[in-house]
């Protein structure tokens, strides 16, 4: 009596074949599970896509950030910094240049919007960096008060008919300041320039009420990245009243915020997955009579428990994997084609200034693994025990039904 020689690979392929067929046979039941899971997974994937894109955008814009930003702190709050510090910092070895910066925020009551004001010499701007606006109608006031605004700002100002001439005013000012808008910024990284108003330095000084010989902060440029930390420490030691923020600090903070936010939402979603899986476990445990009979028949004609268990596990694997795959694709479409309405704002906040900007497509295989581990593996775990319970059905069940 010879032992039965079975090619295990062929047998495995048969199992997979049958599992697949079996899935298609119970379309409604499986379809529902598939759909629910797909929706959950696409939300998770959307979060990763959005976070990834924002991080990518952050990384590309942070290249232009200064290596160190120096601020003066008094009483725990930021105050203007005197230009007397400039020379000693410039002289430090490793420092390429120090740029004093003048900027701040201006809250415009009528539009309930916060604008960023940045002072610089407008004449240094290249022609292609901004779009000129025709200004024949407006009187020509002080060129010190010319400004260029971001497209989001321009859009808003149009609503209040201030797109040619913007009036700055505060309740404690004696006189209002009128600024002529001579151009708009081309929107490349829209996220960055949208609430921006760039003025000549003197105009900015007046609007932001920053005294002469002082600035908002200094931007320090250091060619060798390894020296940044050391120089920052040196400056701190020399001038304890100054605060240094390195580029890496900023990147890390943003990353942490994105991570924190996405992690938070993710945790919430995981709980919903858990609930979903508990239901699945419960459902899979309660065997329908038909299913029990089918398994009984299979066992009776020679299928062993291992094989039936494999079939059930593959069924689960296929459903969850396809839902995973489908979820990721849906998420991609949702985020990059439909621009992720609603979900996007959890990460970038709501503001009337932000229009629909395009997220840079982001894709990383690492995240595929992560999504897989957070979805397919828990699902297969949840069905393992119920699948086993089904698979151990005794073959004589097939006969018992008729007696």
């Amino acid at each position: 009596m010879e032992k039965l020689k079975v090619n295990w690979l062929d047998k495995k392929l048969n199992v997979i074949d049958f599992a697949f067929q079996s899935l298609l046979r119970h379309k409604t039941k499986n379809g529902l599970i598939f759909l629910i899971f797909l929706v959950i997974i696409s939300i998770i994937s959307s979060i990763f896509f959005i976070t990834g894109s924002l991080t990518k955008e952050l990384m590309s814009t942070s290249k232009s950030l200064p290596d160190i930003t120096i601020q003066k702190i008094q009483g725990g709050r930021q105050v203007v910094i005197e230009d007397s510090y400039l020379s000693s910092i410039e002289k430090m070895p490793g420092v390429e240049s120090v740029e004093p910066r003048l900027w701040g925020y201006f809250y415009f009551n009528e539009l309930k919007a916060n604008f960023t004001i940045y002072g610089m010499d407008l004449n240094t701007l290249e022609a292609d960096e901004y779009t000129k606006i025709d200004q024949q109608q407006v009187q020509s006031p002080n060129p010190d008060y010319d400004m260029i605004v971001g497209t989001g700002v321009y859009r808003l100002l149009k609503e209040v008919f201030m797109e040619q001439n913007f009036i700055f005013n505060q309740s404690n000012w004696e006189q209002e300041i009128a600024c002529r808008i001579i151009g708009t910024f081309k929107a490349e990284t829209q996220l960055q320039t949208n609430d921006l108003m760039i003025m000549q330095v003197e105009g900015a000084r007046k609007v932001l009420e920053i005294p002469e010989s002082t600035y908002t902060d200094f931007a320090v440029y250091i060619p060798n990245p390894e020296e940044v930390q050391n120089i920052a420490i040196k400056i701190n030691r020399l001038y304890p009243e100054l605060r240094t923020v390195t580029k890496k600090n900023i990147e890390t903070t943003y990353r942490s915020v994105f991570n924190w936010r996405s992690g938070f939402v993710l945790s919430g979603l995981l709980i919903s997955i858990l609930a979903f899986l508990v239901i699945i476990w419960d459902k899979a445990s309660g065997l329908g009579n038909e299913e029990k009979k089918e398994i009984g028949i299979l066992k009776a004609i020679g299928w062993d428990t291992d094989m039936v268990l494999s079939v059930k596990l593959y069924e689960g694997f296929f459903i969850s994997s396809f839902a995973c795959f489908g979820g990721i694709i849906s998420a991609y479409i949702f985020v990059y084609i439909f621009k992720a309405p609603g979900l996007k704002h959890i990460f970038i906040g709501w503001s009337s200034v932000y229009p629909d900007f395009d997220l840079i497509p982001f894709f990383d295989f690492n995240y595929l693994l992560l999504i897989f581990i957070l979805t397919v593996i828990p699902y297969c775990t949840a069905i393992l025990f119920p699948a086993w319970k089904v698979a151990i059905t005794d073959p004589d069940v097939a006969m018992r039904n008729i007696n």
Partner: protein
Amino acid sequence: MKESLIVLKRITKIYNEGKLNEVVSVNDISLDIKKNEMVVLKGPSGSGKTTLIAMMGCLLKPTSGEITIMGKSVSKLPEKFMNQFKLQYFGFIFQSFQLIPELSVSDNVELPLYPLGIKPAKRREMSLKLLERFDLKQRQNFKIKELSGGEQQRVAIIRAIINQPQILLADEPTAHLDSELSQSYLEYMKALKDSGLSVIIASHDPRVCEFSEVDRVIEIKDGQLKL
């Protein structure tokens, strides 16, 4: 003298042993089925013949006693090895055929071939050959629920013999059949016996018991052999 095929030694099957609803289904039965025999286990419903034939076909394990099939003791075998056995040597036809209704005819008959690791093309070839022999080839893609009783009967037979078994067991095969179908069924059994199989049928149908090809009729009553 014919070779022994299945030897049952003092087989007993008790359900719910020790509990209030304890049932002794089969009580101390010893049997010896020879090769190429056609044997009928005769008895009324509840006599234990279904349980007995299930144990012979390795579908059920006895509570005590020993079953030897072709010289190998199988009563203690774990399921995996028992199944290897089943797949090699047995074919079983159930009382209500027990076909999977949503599957097609060919899918149903090919089921025993899956665990044997037989590739889809070969499976199809084997099933078509038998379907043709039993005049069902044109029905191969029909779902079971679309077939008549006689056609389902033939599908059940094909499924039982597709793995080229040496022993065919049938439980009350004629229970839902009219006399014409019963007769054709018995003709099939004869043909199979002629081709070398051993056939064991559990039935209380007199047409079966009095079939000419039957070598032996073993009477079972209340779980015991009626001598």
